[in-house]
């Protein structure tokens, strides 16, 4: 990493021209925004009247606010179902595709399609599929003699939305795992076969350890995505007056800021979300040092 060209004379000017947008982004877009959000979280401000000092009141209020606690719980429940769901299913699909089979490019295209298209557009179809009286899912259930299920009622909504989120994320996970799997030398498997190791043995003693870097990466990305999940929640669980049957933290931030004009409270929620994500990342990197195998 120590290699590099030194800018000479007038080139220094061009060097700064090239780096300046990023420097602006880092100082104002990233660092400045975080500090600003932190500052805002210590105020009461509706953007109409001048802000007033709130101290830690916004943070204290969060823990007494049942709507926020509900959103926090929903976010955790969402992540607990979503992250393992994405990681396990994409790994499974990638393992299947990594066997030498025909039509792999067709399969890859189809599995990746949901990851390309917008959640807004696909959520519209899922809403139809989940429909209570007219949906195709209940139609099939009725056909096999089961009663209809209200998929998007409060009781089932979180689960139904998680399923759709996983459906939309498998494509990307599959590509990450396929790249990891193809990097494993074939000789390892050949040697294991000669030694008489069965398929399950091969999976758990060769594939799984050697694919831990991809598992780590995918778990990290899925967790970040889970904590920021918004689109499907917004599209599938919205109720009258802009509420949601299963609000998550991002939903709550949006609602507090842009529906209730409580920018201080929303900022406090955003800061909490960031702190949570950062703590989780720190935990993951600690796990990585202990368990992830890099060749």
């Amino acid at each position: 990493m120590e290699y590099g060209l030194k800018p000479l004379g007038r080139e220094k000017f061009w060097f700064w021209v090239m780096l300046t947008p990023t420097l602006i982004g880092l100082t104002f877009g990233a660092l400045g925004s975080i500090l600003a959000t932190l500052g805002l979280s210590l105020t009461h401000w509706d953007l109409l009247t001048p802000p007033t000092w709130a101290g830690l009141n916004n943070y204290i209020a969060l823990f007494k606010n049942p709507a926020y606690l509900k959103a926090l719980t929903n976010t955790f429940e969402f992540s607990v179902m979503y992250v393992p769901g994405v990681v396990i299913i994409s790994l499974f699909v990638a393992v299947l595709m990594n066997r030498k089979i025909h039509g792999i490019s067709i399969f890859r295209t189809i599995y990746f399609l949901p990851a390309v298209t917008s959640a807004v557009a696909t959520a519209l179809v899922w809403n139809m599929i989940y429909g209570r009286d007219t949906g195709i899912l209940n139609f099939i259930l009725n056909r096999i003699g089961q009663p209809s299920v209200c998929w998007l009622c409060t009781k089932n909504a979180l689960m139904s939305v998680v399923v759709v989120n996983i459906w939309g994320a498998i494509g990307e996970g599959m590509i990450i795992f396929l790249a990891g799997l193809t990097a494993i030398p074939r000789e390892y498997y050949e040697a294991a076969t000669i030694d008489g190791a069965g398929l399950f043995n091969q999976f758990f003693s060769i594939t799984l350890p050697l694919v831990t870097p991809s598992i780590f990466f995918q778990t990290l990305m899925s967790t970040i995505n889970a904590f920021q999940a918004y689109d499907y929640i917004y599209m599938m669980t919205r109720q009258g007056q802009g509420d949601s049957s299963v609000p998550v933290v991002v939903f709550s931030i949006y609602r507090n800021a842009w529906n209730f004009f409580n920018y201080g409270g929303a900022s406090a929620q955003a800061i909490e979300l960031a702190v949570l994500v950062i703590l989780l990342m720190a935990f993951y990197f600690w796990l990585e040092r202990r368990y992830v195998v890099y060749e």
Partner: protein
Amino acid sequence: MTKTTQKILLDLVTYVLLIAGAVTMLAPFLWMVATSFKLPADQFTHTLIPNPATLDNFRKLFSFDLNFPRLFLNSTIISLLTVVGQLLTCAMAAFCFAVVKFRGRNLLFTFLLVTLMIPEQVTLIPNFIIFKYLHLVGTSVPLWLPAFWGGAFGTFLLRQYFLTIPRELLDAARVDGASLWQIFWRIYLPLGKPALAALSIFTFQGAWNDLLHPLVYMPTVPNTTLTVGLAFFQTQLTQGGRFTVLMAGALISILPLVLVFFFAQKQFIEGISLSGLKR
């Protein structure tokens, strides 16, 4: 069980599982296409082939007071400007990080990577307040302008690729008296095309599919993007029982990306592998 029968059996299981999965991945799209060609009266029929089929829903989309063409145009302009901004600024920064030696390079790059983990929602509120005071809320400026101050993901992706370009090229160019800017413009940009293509696609996809930012900055129909527009029509059209028109809208909104994906699948997939593996 002999080895060959075991292999055949295993292949069979693989195909059955993959096909079952493929049907699940594809079914919602088939349903979308099917419904968009049905008559409004047939919107809840459980058949995949519309009978009779009609183009009326698409016609309605463009004749209605929905102003669908305007939404489409807004999304296109915002997405293209975002791509331009990201390509330009990320490529320049990535070149600096990959090629130029300067003090604090590693520290700055680490700092950039850390910002990848910060949820966007943290920066949303102060940005909104600034744009509000600049009287730019309600215009498309807040949606594409930030693309012009770089980005951690794009810079990282391009830097990884730039690092794979042989140094000998650089040294030879330097011996020939090429300046820093010439090396960037004549060597790194042309050779970096695959990574630049991948970044363009990701950026376009992200901007085109974005819902949260347009909801904040352009919340009212018709002066908004496709995503917000569709979310708005959802409440409008489902109450009116016009799922067929809604599905036609959804279909048209995903069409550009699906086409790009079919033609540039390689870039998509290489881009993801590039961002995910080499650390």
